[in-house]
């Protein structure tokens, strides 16, 4: 089932990174942090929907942040507020916000997007939130995180500002720690962070990414071994406990 959404905003917020706000109450109503939607292209040569995480949401809107990497995301980047967009309902099991004193949120690249909704939800509790954000070069969402987090650390691969290197190195160097970690980003980052957290005996929820066919659990395309069992990233995840993922 496809829902029609109205585009309220579609703006390039950093080179090749777009922020799109879609008005679609039936979809937004059921949104949970860490979920994603399947976004359909108009280009009929492309059959499969594009999974994009919820960056933020309200009662009747969802906000997506996407990098233009191929034909589909290039198409999305051309949409204006005159266009409508077809999306699925929200899919997947998102993050499970914990009840602890200090949360550490770790994002790499476009994986930072879904963590904003998480930070917003956590900020409703009266707890400490530390965000560690890693970028290739250009930064985005840093201000949004700063306005709701107690501490925000930034690293870039290229020396643009802040720490140069990857987020896990930054965490180690600055001894950033807390009671619970949440992360989203490239697999090597998630793996390194999981290893780090497991050593320190701190639980970490990681949002995994895998090439998807259907996004709702029918095709078994997005397999991930968790606790030695085959799990569907789209349906059983995308969020798993880092300590339980069978990293390869």
């Amino acid at each position, binding site marked *: 089932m496809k829902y029609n959404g109205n585009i309220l905003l579609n703006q390039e917020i950093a080179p090749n990174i777009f922020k799109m706000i879609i008005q679609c109450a039936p979809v937004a109503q059921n949104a949970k942090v860490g979920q994603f939607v399947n976004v359909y292209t108009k280009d009929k040569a492309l*059959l499969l929907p594009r999974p994009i995480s919820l960056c933020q949401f309200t009662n009747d809107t969802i906000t997506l942040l996407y990098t233009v990497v191929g034909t589909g995301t290039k198409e999305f980047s051309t949409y204006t507020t005159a266009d409508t967009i077809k999306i699925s309902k929200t899919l997947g099991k998102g993050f499970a916000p914990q009840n602890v004193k200090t949360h550490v949120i770790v994002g790499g690249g476009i994986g930072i997007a879904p963590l904003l909704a998480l930070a917003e939800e956590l900020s409703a509790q009266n707890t400490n939130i530390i965000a560690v954000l890693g970028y290739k070069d250009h930064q985005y969402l840093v201000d949004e995180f700063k306005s709701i987090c107690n501490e925000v650390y930034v690293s870039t691969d290229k020396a643009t500002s802040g720490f140069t290197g990857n987020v896990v190195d930054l965490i180690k160097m600055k001894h950033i720690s807390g009671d619970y970690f949440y992360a989203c980003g490239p697999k090597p980052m998630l793996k390194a962070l999981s290893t780090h957290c497991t050593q320190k005996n701190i639980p970490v929820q990681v949002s995994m990414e895998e*090439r998807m066919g*259907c996004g*709702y659990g*029918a095709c*078994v395309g*997005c*397999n991930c071994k968790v606790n030695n069992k085959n799990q569907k990233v789209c349906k059983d995840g995308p969020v798993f406990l880092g300590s339980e993922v069978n990293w390869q």
Partner: protein
Amino acid sequence: MDLSVKLGNITLKNPIMTASGTFSSKENSEFIDINQLGAVVTKGVSTAPWDGNPTPRIAETYGGMINAVGLQNDGVDTYIENELAFLNQFDTIKIANIAGRTIDEYCEVVQKLNNSSVDMMEINISCPNVKCGGIGFGTDVALAGEVTAQVKKIAKKPIIVKLTPNVTDITEIAKAVEAAGADVISLINTLLGMKIDVHKKKCVVANRMGGLSGPAIKPVAIRMVYQVRRSVNIPIIGLGGIMNGEDVAEFILAGADAVAIGTATLIDPTAPIKIKNEFSQYMDLYNFKNISELKSSFIN
């Protein structure tokens, strides 16, 4: 309008089935009313659990997709306990799709399903034959007949044999499985394909090759259904690239008795019902009162 069709002794309330591997009963039931389907074909099941291929398993192509899931499944026992038990609540025909690497493996699954609630079993002969060095059962006339005959010997339910299109002459294989006792033929499975990422300079799916499905392959499927319809007398389930109601009509005109929806369901979980409704409208438009009227309207 009467949309019912017969596959041998089994009557389907309408010709719309799901295609194996593209429909998950629990997941899809959140989107559609399974009672409205002619039949549900579940994903390939083997004796013991299979792990499938490494990821990525999916690639997109022009008007199609490649999958190399590798028949990952939890084995027939879990299948009976979980998916089949779940399906029992619905008023539809339940068809198990069976995978095996040897004839014995196929037979073992059939044996276990004989006393289950499945109505029919579909033998997927695209699996590699381990004994004959990995050559597919479905690409060899003798092996295709042999696996069919052995399965038929023990099966207590009607047997559908699902053919692969990756052969020189589909009619030879179809005739062999009919001669060996198949009750129904379904076709086509996926075409063997590959995609290379020109930026990463490597194959998109980890297994390198995979099965091409979707509307891109429909002309091959229609051709094969047409050829097989003129070579055998048993019923045919047609599939490959069905995206809408007119595609269903095209397969039936080519000679199919029922059809299955595959890739379309992955794109949109409600596709089988949407397509069923469109097909009803098509039947209405031309005032066809039943499927035979449509079928016999074909001008050869």
